[in-house]
């Protein structure tokens, strides 16, 4: 007995078994097997291998039992033991003794039932683990291996052996140990919390069970207050509360814990006698029920509401999924409760469900439910893309657990949206019955306004994870496809437009796509955008000659084709001088065709010439043909999308302005021609020279003005704007770019041709100048007419005189001569009238020009200011107009100072 010889542990164990049970070796075979298994599976010690700690515990234990003398004795003995060097594992022996110690004052009669259970469970264990029976000699001592073996056996035996394991646990007598081991339980707590954390995340019920099964290994169970505390009368047992709480978790009122309508929370019946801590724990747990109700109410209310839309439905489905996980956990807890019921009270004392345990295990589900409830609150009244935005905004949390949860929900929620999106960008179809997608379609819009008005973005429905830019691109892609189909009548199979569509049609994992919004998603949209837009532009250019039409606009409506316009004016002049009411469209159309055929315009595309037409504006009384004539260009079909009615109205206005300016040029040419032709003839009438000089001066003033105006319009306005337009059209990636560039072109032409509202004053002055030119033309015409009439009369008089002289008669009679003189007198008397009329004209004209110049000088447009310099290049007007002098002077002064 006293020799510490190295017998094998199995032999020792066997003799121990015999010794304790007092039976022979054969009789204790079962017990021996069991002992070998327990030792073999050797739970990793949950305590520090510290002799000092153990001895302190023993002292504490003795002190607790009010045996101070024994404690002193123990420390004496311990000291003695330390002086001996025989034992290598003193802590181990001491610990063993401590574990086996019993309070002598406590009755030790609580063993009976355990034994029955033990005997019951033993054969089953022997079967499930035959491993240890066959190899009794090899006791594995490596901790890792042992614990692995243990967990494996737990996994296979499952819940049926649960009760046994809790019995076999190292802490079979928790009451005696617990009080002495505060640090141990504190260390075990976080471990348990971590397992509970993992509990709801894992989906399968078997893995959800695992933490329950392994729980006894984590250390002593959380102290259960109902065992320690003496019970008062009428107090509710904790087990009943746990049962209640499990119902409350599902939103069902329990026996004691009921929904309080006025406070909107679960409350323990105030009549129930209960200590405060339990009451607190209960109400903390009951929050789960409240959260569950909230989520449940939302899904119940919405899942039948079809108008809630697909996105909403998938949100509800996601919530359902989460609730299902939650229910699974609850069912596990319920089954645990069931097992406890079957095994009776005994099991409850060690591993039962307690409120505290629930508090730990339900911690994570509570956080999840809280997030869901918050989500539900936030999503109230939202649907479609808005809902997805709301969910997405909740994903921006630092907590990885919550982020994963929200991401999961988001991927479900945004799935329908992405489906919409793919249908839209690859097929151009909008199957959005509940208006959830961010592209809206207006069914009332006809095809001619399809591009502009039919589709629009629903700003509120754009999910926040899709940028505005992406959204507008998406809109554009689908719009282009629809435009191709409905307006261009293009029936190319879609696969040809976007080769990427095939790969994208396969339902991809939405979450994956969402996580990579910057990369793959953007790429996909960009590719679809690029392909579709390019195809659309190709179709428009190839089949519908968009660019040719653009050029035709410039050539015909903006008078770019000079020879044609000139010839047309020549041909139209006799028609247009007539009153507007006598004009007939068919005559003018005929003239137009003649003009086309006679000029380079004939080489133009027939498609374009076909569209060229004459249009007569509304006639107001007193209008001549000049005022109402206008060229027109018919646009229809796809190109009408670029050349909208509005645009054509602008073109018409610009054309009228340009046409008027052109007419002035034309008129002045006529004036100049008259002057040149008549100058020689009228040399014989010296009395006219003054008047004619005045005419020449005024005419050249006007010619200068109109030349500069024409220069400005042609080069500064039309050509510059056109160049910009052409560059932009060449670089355009989609139809919207072309439309925008074209609108910009028209706007700039309108504003710089002084046709917009801000330069109305300028335009009025210009109109007045034009009127003066017309007036001057008629004045000069009448002047020439009377002068030429006078001239012919004089010539006739001279001829007659000569003829008579050759006939040998008196050239003139006195009477005739007097008559002649009287006529000449009369004519000469009209000359001052003419002069004054011309002077008035000049005066008016110069006044208007000066005002025009003043307006030009104050204009903000630089090119207009430059125009004023050109018009007044020799400072002729500046000398006359003090206002002009001031403004010009300051301007020039500033420029000089700048230089």
């Amino acid at each position, binding site marked *: 007995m006293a020799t510490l010889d190295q017998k094998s542990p199995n032999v020792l164990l066997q003799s121990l078994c015999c010794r*304790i049970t007092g039976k022979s070796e054969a009789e204790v075979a079962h017990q021996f097997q069991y002992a070998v298994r327990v030792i073999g599976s050797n739970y990793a010690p949950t305590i520090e291998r510290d002799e000092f700690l153990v001895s302190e515990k023993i002292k504490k234990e003795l002190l607790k039992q009010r045996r101070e003398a024994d404690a002193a004795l123990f420390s004496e003995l311990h000291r003695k033991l330390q002086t001996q060097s025989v034992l290598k594992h003193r802590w181990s022996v001491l610990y063993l003794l401590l574990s086996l110690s019993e309070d002598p004052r406590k009755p030790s009669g609580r063993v009976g039932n355990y034994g029955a259970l033990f005997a019951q469970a033993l054969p089953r264990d022997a079967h499930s683990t035959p491993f240890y029976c066959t190899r009794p000699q090899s006791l594995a001592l490596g901790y890792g291996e042992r614990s692995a073996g243990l967990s494996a056996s737990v996994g296979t035996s499952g819940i049926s052996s649960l009760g046994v394991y809790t019995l076999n646990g190292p802490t079979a007598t928790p009451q005696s140990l617990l009080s002495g081991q505060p640090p141990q339980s504190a260390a075990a707590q976080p471990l348990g919390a971590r397992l509970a954390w993992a509990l709801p995340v894992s989906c399968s019920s078997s893995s959800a069970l695992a933490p329950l099964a392994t729980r006894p290994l984590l250390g002593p169970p959380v102290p259960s207050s109902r065992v320690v505390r003496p019970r008062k009368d009428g107090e509710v047992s904790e087990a009943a509360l746990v049962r209640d709480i499990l119902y409350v978790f599902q939103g069902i009122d329990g026996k004691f814990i009921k929904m309080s309508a006025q406070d909107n929370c679960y409350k323990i019946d105030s009549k129930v006698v209960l200590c405060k801590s339990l009451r607190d724990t209960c109400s903390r747990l009951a929050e789960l029920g409240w959260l569950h109700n909230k989520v449940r109410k939302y899904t119940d209310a919405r899942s039948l509401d079809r108008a809630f839309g697909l996105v909403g439905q998938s949100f509800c489905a996601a919530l359902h999924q989460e609730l299902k996980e939650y229910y699974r956990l609850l069912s596990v807890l319920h089954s645990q409760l069931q097992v406890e019921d079957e095994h009776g009270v005994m099991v409850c004392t060690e591993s039962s469900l307690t409120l505290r345990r629930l508090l730990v295990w339900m911690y994570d589900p509570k956080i999840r439910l809280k997030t869901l409830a918050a989500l539900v609150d936030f999503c109230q009244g939202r649907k479609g893309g808005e809902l997805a935005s709301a969910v997405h905004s909740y994903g921006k949390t630092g907590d990885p657990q919550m982020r994963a949860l929200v991401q999961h929900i988001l991927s479900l929620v945004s799935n329908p949206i992405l489906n919409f999106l793919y249908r839209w960008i690859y097929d151009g179809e909008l199957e959005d019955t509940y208006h959830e997608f961010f592209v809206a379609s207006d069914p009332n819009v006809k095809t001619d306004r399809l591009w502009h008005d039919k589709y629009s973005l629903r700003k509120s429905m754009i999910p926040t994870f899709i940028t505005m830019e992406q959204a507008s691109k998406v809109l554009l892609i689908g719009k282009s496809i629809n435009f191709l189909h409905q307006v261009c009548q293009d029936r190319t199979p879609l696969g040809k437009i976007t080769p990427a569509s095939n790969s994208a049609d396969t339902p991809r994992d939405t979450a994956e796509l969402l996580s990579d919004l910057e990369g793959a998603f953007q790429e996909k949209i960009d590719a679809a955008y690029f392909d579709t837009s390019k195809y659309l532009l190709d179709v428009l250019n190839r089949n519908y000659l968009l660019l040719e039409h653009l050029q035709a606009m410039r050539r015909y409506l903006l008078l770019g084709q000079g020879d044609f316009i000139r010839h047309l004016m020549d041909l139209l002049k006799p028609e247009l001088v007539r009153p507007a009411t006598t004009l007939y469209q068919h005559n003018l159309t005929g003239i137009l065709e003649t003009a086309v055929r006679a000029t380079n315009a004939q080489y133009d595309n027939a498609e374009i010439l076909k569209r060229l037409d004459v249009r007569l504006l509304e006639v107001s009384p007193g209008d001549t043909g000049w005022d109402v004539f206008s060229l027109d260009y018919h646009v229809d079909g796809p190109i009408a999308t670029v050349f909208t009615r509005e645009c054509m109205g602008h073109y018409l206005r610009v054309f009228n302005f340009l046409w008027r300016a052109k007419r002035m040029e034309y008129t002045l040419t006529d004036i100049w021609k008259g002057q040149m032709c008549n100058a020689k003839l009228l040399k014989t009438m010296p009395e006219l020279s003054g008047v004619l000089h005045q005419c020449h001066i005024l005419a050249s003033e006007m010619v200068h003005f109109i030349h500069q105006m024409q220069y400005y319009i042609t080069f500064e306005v039309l050509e510059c704007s056109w160049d910009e337009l052409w560059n932009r059209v060449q670089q355009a990636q989609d139809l919207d770019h072309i439309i925008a560039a074209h609108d910009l072109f028209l706007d700039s032409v309108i504003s710089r041709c002084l046709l917009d509202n801000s330069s109305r004053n300028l335009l009025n002055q210009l109109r007045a100048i034009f009127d003066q030119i017309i007036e001057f033309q008629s004045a000069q015409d009448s002047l020439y007419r009377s002068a030429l009439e006078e001239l012919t009369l004089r010539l006739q008089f001279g001829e007659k005189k000569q003829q008579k002289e050759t006939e040998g008669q008196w050239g003139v009679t006195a009477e005739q001569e007097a008559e002649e003189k009287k006529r000449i007198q009369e004519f000469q008397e009209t000359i001052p009238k003419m002069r004054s009329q011309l002077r008035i004209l000049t005066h008016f004209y110069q006044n208007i020009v000066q005002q025009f110049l003043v307006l030009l000088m104050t204009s903000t447009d630089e090119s207009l200011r430059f125009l004023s310099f050109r018009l007044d290049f020799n400072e002729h007007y500046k000398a006359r107009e003090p206002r002009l002098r001031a403004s010009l002077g300051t301007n020039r002064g500033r420029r000089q100072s700048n230089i």
Partner: protein
Amino acid sequence: MASAASANLNAVRETMDVLLEISRLLNTGLDMESLSICVRLCEQGINPEALSAVIKELRKASETLKASENSTN
């Protein structure tokens, strides 16, 4: 050699006495022989937690066996 062995034996005996005393103090219910077996097991590195569990179970088992024998008798 012999004296060393006897000194060792003395030390062992003394140790065992001390341990028995502690065991008695703590009311473990182990007799000398069981204690010595336990000490030897512990010295071989057996986890004392597991060992104590085994001992308790063995006691319970023998108790039940006795009880059942009594009742059958």
